[in-house]
C-alpha cells in the first residue's frame, strides 16, 4: 500500500499541470458608475476592443453628456489604468461603435451617428475629423484590419431594408478616405441583411451576417480577396431537419442572431452566434470554425457546457488564440447575468465554462467583448450594480 501511495504521488508530481486562463484584477474603463448612466458595449460583430502600438482601446456608447454618444478609453497594454474617456461622436446621437488598431498608437473607430455610418481616427492625444462612410441612411458598421489593409462593411438603407455593403478604407495620418461601397451579395434586395461581422485573413476577408430573405433569419458567410467581389454566400448555421413546427407548415426556421467573427490573421476564422434550435431553453452559444480563411466552416458546435443548458445565453463574443478558440457570453444560471467563457481544445471539445473575478457575482455582468493580442486575452464587459453601471476590463494569460 505504501508503495502504491508513493507511486501515485510520484505520478502526480510528474504530470504537467493543466494550463488555464488566469486573469488579472479587473479595472474600470468607462470611469466611475453614476445613477442613470447607461453604458452599452453593443456593435455589429462585437468589435469594441483593439490594440495598436503599446495601447489598448475600448469603445462604447453612453449618455454621460445627456444623449447617447460614443466614447473610447485607452490604457497601456503593459500597465493597469485607463485614461479618462474620449468622446468620439459629434452629432445628436451615436451608437454601436467598433474599433481597429492602425499601428503607431492610432486607432480607427466607426459608428452610427445621426443615422449614418461615420469613422474617426484617434489616439491618446489627437483625433481626426469624423468622416462619413455613407451619404445615405446606414447602420451596423464592422471593421477589419490586417496585412496592411483596412475594410468596412455596414447596412445601407435600400427601400424598406438594410442591405449589406462593403468598402476599402485608407488612412493617411488622421485622415480617412473611403473607396467605392459595393453590395456584398449582388442578388436583388428582398429583405433585411443585418449585423455583419468582418475578419481579416491571409487571403483577404471573411464576413458573416444575418439574412432574412428566406422568411426567417439565416446566418450567411462569404469571402473576398479584395473586398470588391465576394464569393457566393454560404449558410453558417445548421437548421434541424425535423421540427414539429415545420411539419405543421409554420414559421421557417429556428432563431439565430448576432454572429461575431474573429480570426488569427491567417487561415483560422471562428464564428459564434446565438442559436435557438433548442427553443425550450432560449438561445445557446453556437460556434463554427474555419481552417481555410472562412471559405468553409466545420460543423456547428455548442460552446457552453451542460450547466448552462437550462438558461439562455446572450451576447456571444469570440477570440482566436494559440491556445484555442475562446467564446464569451453572459447567462443567468446563477440567477443574475454573469460573464462565462469556454475554450475550444479541439474539434467539438470545449472546456467547462468558467468565470472571471469581477465578471461574476453581485449585480449584473453582461455584453462581453474579446480580443487576443500580445499574448494576452483581453475581456471587457458591462457591470451594473446599485451604484450604476460601468464598462470593466480584465486581461488574462494562459499559464
Amino acid at each position, binding site marked *: 500500500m505504501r508503495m502504491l501511495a508513493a507511486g501515485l504521488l510520484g505520478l502526480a508530481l510528474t504530470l504537467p499541470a493543466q494550463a488555464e486562463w488566469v486573469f488579472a484584477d479587473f479595472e474600470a474603463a468607462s470611469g466611475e458608475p453614476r445613477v*442613470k448612466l447607461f453604458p452599452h458595449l453593443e456593435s455589429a460583430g462585437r468589435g469594441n476592443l483593439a490594440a495598436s502600438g503599446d495601447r489598448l482601446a475600448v469603445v462604447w456608447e453612453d449618455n454621460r453628456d445627456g444623449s447617447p454618444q460614443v466614447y473610447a478609453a485607452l490604457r497601456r497594454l503593459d500597465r493597469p489604468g485607463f485614461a479618462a474617456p474620449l468622446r468620439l461622436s459629434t452629432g445628436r*446621437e451615436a451608437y454601436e461603435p467598433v474599433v481597429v488598431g492602425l499601428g503607431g498608437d492610432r486607432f480607427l473607430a466607426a459608428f452610427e451617428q445621426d443615422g449614418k455610418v461615420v469613422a474617426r481616427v484617434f489616439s491618446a492625444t489627437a483625433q481626426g475629423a469624423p468622416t462619413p462612410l455613407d451619404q445615405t441612411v446606414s447602420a451596423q458598421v464592422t471593421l477589419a484590419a490586417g496585412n496592411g489593409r483596412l475594410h468596412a462593411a455596414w447596412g445601407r438603407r435600400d427601400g424598406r431594408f438594410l442591405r449589406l455593403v462593403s468598402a476599402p478604407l485608407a488612412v493617411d495620418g488622421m485622415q480617412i478616405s473611403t473607396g467605392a461601397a459595393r453590395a456584398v451579395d449582388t442578388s436583388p434586395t428582398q429583405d433585411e441583411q443585418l449585423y455583419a461581422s468582418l475578419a481579416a485573413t491571409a487571403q483577404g476577408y471573411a464576413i458573416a451576417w444575418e439574412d432574412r430573405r428566406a*422568411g426567417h433569419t439565416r446566418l450567411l458567410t462569404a469571402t473576398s480577396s479584395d473586398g470588391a467581389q465576394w464569393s457566393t454566400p454560404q449558410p453558417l448555421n445548421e437548421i434541424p431537419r425535423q421540427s414539429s413546427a415545420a411539419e*405543421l407548415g409554420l414559421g421557417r426556421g429556428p432563431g439565430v442572431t448576432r454572429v461575431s467573427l474573429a480570426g488569427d490573421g491567417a487561415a483560422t476564422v471562428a464564428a459564434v452566434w446565438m442559436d*435557438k434550435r433548442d427553443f425550450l431553453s432560449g438561445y445557446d452559444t453556437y460556434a463554427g470554425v474555419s481552417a481555410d480563411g472562412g471559405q468553409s466552416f466545420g460543423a456547428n458546435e455548442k460552446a457552453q457546457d451542460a450547466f448552462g443548458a437550462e438558461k439562455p445565453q446572450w*451576447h456571444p463574443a469570440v477570440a482566436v488564440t494559440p491556445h484555442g478558440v475562446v467564446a464569451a457570453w453572459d447567462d*443567468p444560471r446563477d440567477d443574475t447575468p454573469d460573464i462565462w467563457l469556454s475554450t475550444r481544445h479541439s474539434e467539438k471539445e470545449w472546456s467547462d465554462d468558467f468565470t472571471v473575478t469581477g465578471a461574476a457575482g453581485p449585480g449584473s455582468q453582461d455584453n462581453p467583448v474579446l480580443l487576443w493580442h500580445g499574448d494576452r486575452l483581453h475581456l471587457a464587459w458591462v457591470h451594473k450594480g446599485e451604484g450604476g453601471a460601468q464598462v470593466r476590463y480584465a486581461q488574462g494569460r494562459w499559464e
Partner: protein
Amino acid sequence: MNALTCLLALATLLFAAAVQADPPAGYAFVPYDEGLRQAQASGRKIFLYFGRYGCAWCDKTNKESFFDAGLKQRYSDNYVLVYVDAESGNRLTLPSGERLTEMELGARLNVFATPVFLYLEPDGSPILKVPGFKTVQDFRDFDRYIQGGHYRKMKLLEFLAENPA
C-alpha cells in the same frame, strides 16, 4: 404592367406577409416606448407580444388565435397593444431614459423563447408572463384574470380553478 404581372406582385406581397411572424394584421400594435406613453396617458394596461421573425409558434398564434374577431375586439378595447421583435435592433427609450434595442429589452426581461406574452400595469411593471402558443380561450382567461384584478389576490392557476370558463 399587365394583369399577370400585377397578380404575381400581389402574390409575392401576400407570400412575404405570410411567412413573417410580425404582429397579427388588424391590431394596433405600437413600439414599447410608445405603448408605455399611451398606457400612462390612458390608464389602460399593456399587452406586450414578444415575437420573432420566422417564429413558428408566433405564426400559429397569429393564425389560430389572433384571427378571432371577438378576441381582437376584446384586446383592442382593454389594452395598449405593444409588439417587440426579439431579434430587432430597433431602438426604444425606457422610462429611465435609457436607450436600448428591442433585442436588449428581451434580454433584460429574460424572454428566452417566442412568443412570450406579458401583461403590464400602465407604468410598465409586470403582472403576468405567459410563454408559447395560446388558444383563443387561453387569451380570454388571461384577460378575465387581468381585467378583474384577480392577479392582486391569487395566482393564475388558482383563479382558473375557481373560475373556469
